[in-house]
């Protein structure tokens, strides 16, 4: 364990626990409107202040953490499933499948990803499920390339020849032997992917086409914070810092894992 990894993992675990414990820790219902306490500054009653509907910001932040982290993790899960399957097929079978899949990867990499996401999200409904799917569907290319490269070298190794010799099928070889052995570099890419997905979700929500209110996400709290920026600094400061620190945590964790892998 190096310092980067410990630092990153600490942040990641902290926010994960905060998100899981949200219902236990939060003093208020995140959706409870209190018109007597609109935009109050952080105080003993509302430690992070309240928003323009008098809702407790601390509670909304914690429930927002659930939404933001969930979107990040599931989006990356989707991208890992697509990337690993396509990369494994390309690497293992080679030939026409390989050419076809890798050309597809090249083409997808040409698009400014955020443009593609924006177009699809706006044409479909901006729901939380659509956001996860679209982020996943536009971010699997790196994973596919990594898996393919790993499998290209792994499939020439003796233990794979041994599998062929005892009559193991392609599916078994790919899923039981090749993919597990090729996952190490993918792990780095997945960790960094969570950070990227959280940023994309918050950007979309900020632009108003991401997670839709009243469901809180860090991005849409910020979007509201922008309109009351002069009057309520806490609406900008806390959600922005939360996104920043979480994304930093996942990035440092990923970088830490990368360094560890390079050493071994």
């Amino acid at each position: 364990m190096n310092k980067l990894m410990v630092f990153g993992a600490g942040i990641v675990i902290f926010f994960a626990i905060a998100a899981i414990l949200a219902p236990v820790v939060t003093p208020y219902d995140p959706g409870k409107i209190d018109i007597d306490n609109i935009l109050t500054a952080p105080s003993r009653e509302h430690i992070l202040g309240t928003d323009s509907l008098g809702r407790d910001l601390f509670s909304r932040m914690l429930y927002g953490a659930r939404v933001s982290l969930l979107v990040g993790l599931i989006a990356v899960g989707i991208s890992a499933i697509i990337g690993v399957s396509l990369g494994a097929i390309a690497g293992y079978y080679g030939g026409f499948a390989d050419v076809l899949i890798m050309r597809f990867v090249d083409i997808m990499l040409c698009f400014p990803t955020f443009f593609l996401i924006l177009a699809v999200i706006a044409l479909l409904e901006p729901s939380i499920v659509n956001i996860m799917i679209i982020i996943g569907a536009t971010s699997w290319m790196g994973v596919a390339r990594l898996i393919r490269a790993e499998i290209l070298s792994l499939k020439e190794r003796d233990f794979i020849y041994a599998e062929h010799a005892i009559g193991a099928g392609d599916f078994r070889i790919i899923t039981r032997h090749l993919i597990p052995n090729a996952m190490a570099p993918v792990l780095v890419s997945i960790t960094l992917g969570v950070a990227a997905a959280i940023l994309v979700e918050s950007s979309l929500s900020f632009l108003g086409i991401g997670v839709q209110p009243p469901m809180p996400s860090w991005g849409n709290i910020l979007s509201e914070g922008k309109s009351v920026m002069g009057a309520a600094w806490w609406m900008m400061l806390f959600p922005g810092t939360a996104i920043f620190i979480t994304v930093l945590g996942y990035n440092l964790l990923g970088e830490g894992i990368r360094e560890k892998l390079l050493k071994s």
Partner: protein
Amino acid sequence: MIKYILRRLIGLVPLLLGISIITFAVIHLAPGKPTDLEAQFNPKVSLEARERLNHIYGLDKPLHIQYIDWLKRLSRFDFGISFTDSRPVIAKIAERIPITLGINLASIILILLIGIPIGVSSAVKEKSFYDRSMTVFVFAGFAIPTFWLSLILMDIVGVRWGLLPVSGIKSLDFDKFTSVEKIIDIVRHLALPVFVSAFGGLAGISRYMRSNMVHVLKQDYIRTARAKGLSERDIVYKHALKNALLPVVTILGLSIPGLIGGSVIFESIFSIPGMGRLFYESVMSRDYPVIMGVLVIGAGLTLLGNLLADISYAAVDPRIKLEN
């Protein structure tokens, strides 16, 4: 060299076709028709009128015919007419491209100017406190949400301190300025957007530079240079740096789509009339021809950037041409 360039140009054809297919699919497989918006807000639009609209836009034809028609027009750089103001799409995009490319170019230069020294010095002092702090610093830039940083800078630098203008690319009385004042005016307007965009991109280049440099410094020829008694300065800047810099060209090409994509955010925040804002507005008003045009041109620019990067790489590193 010419053979290499030709081979690369031919390789672009399938990619361009793929780009057009994906763009077309994204727009046409999504539910709803481009004419819905025109019809939706106007209850008087009858079924016949709707069908007539569909006919005008060719939407009553089978999908593959529509695609081929569109592709034929694309090959003549005819991207159609915008739904919102009936201007040719290509003209709308053409007036926005220089702004977005200009900002991105400025931010790439800034990234290189700051990122390369950070990468090199971190590699030389590998695993030191300095190296660790720089890692955290560049990752901080990467992790800060662009829109958040933009708003904070706008508020502090622009509104509270009144140092820089916070929206648009030129002042209202721009036309009365002398040419020197005009340049200063544009620089002042673009300072914040360029800074925001560069801060986010710093991590990529500096980390890449660092790992290249760490790798190069362990090579045999560096040991040889040390053995013959060269100063550490000469070793780092004359021998190692040149070799570590080469691959950066490629990573620059790869970072283009991210930069162009990121322009949506800061162009909307700083009200900069660039491609990103055009795209956002078109998406919001479902201006399909513009959406498709920007997607194709954005991807085309990336292709072009990668091609230029590869060609310049091949020009400085003869090993590349000989491969394949």
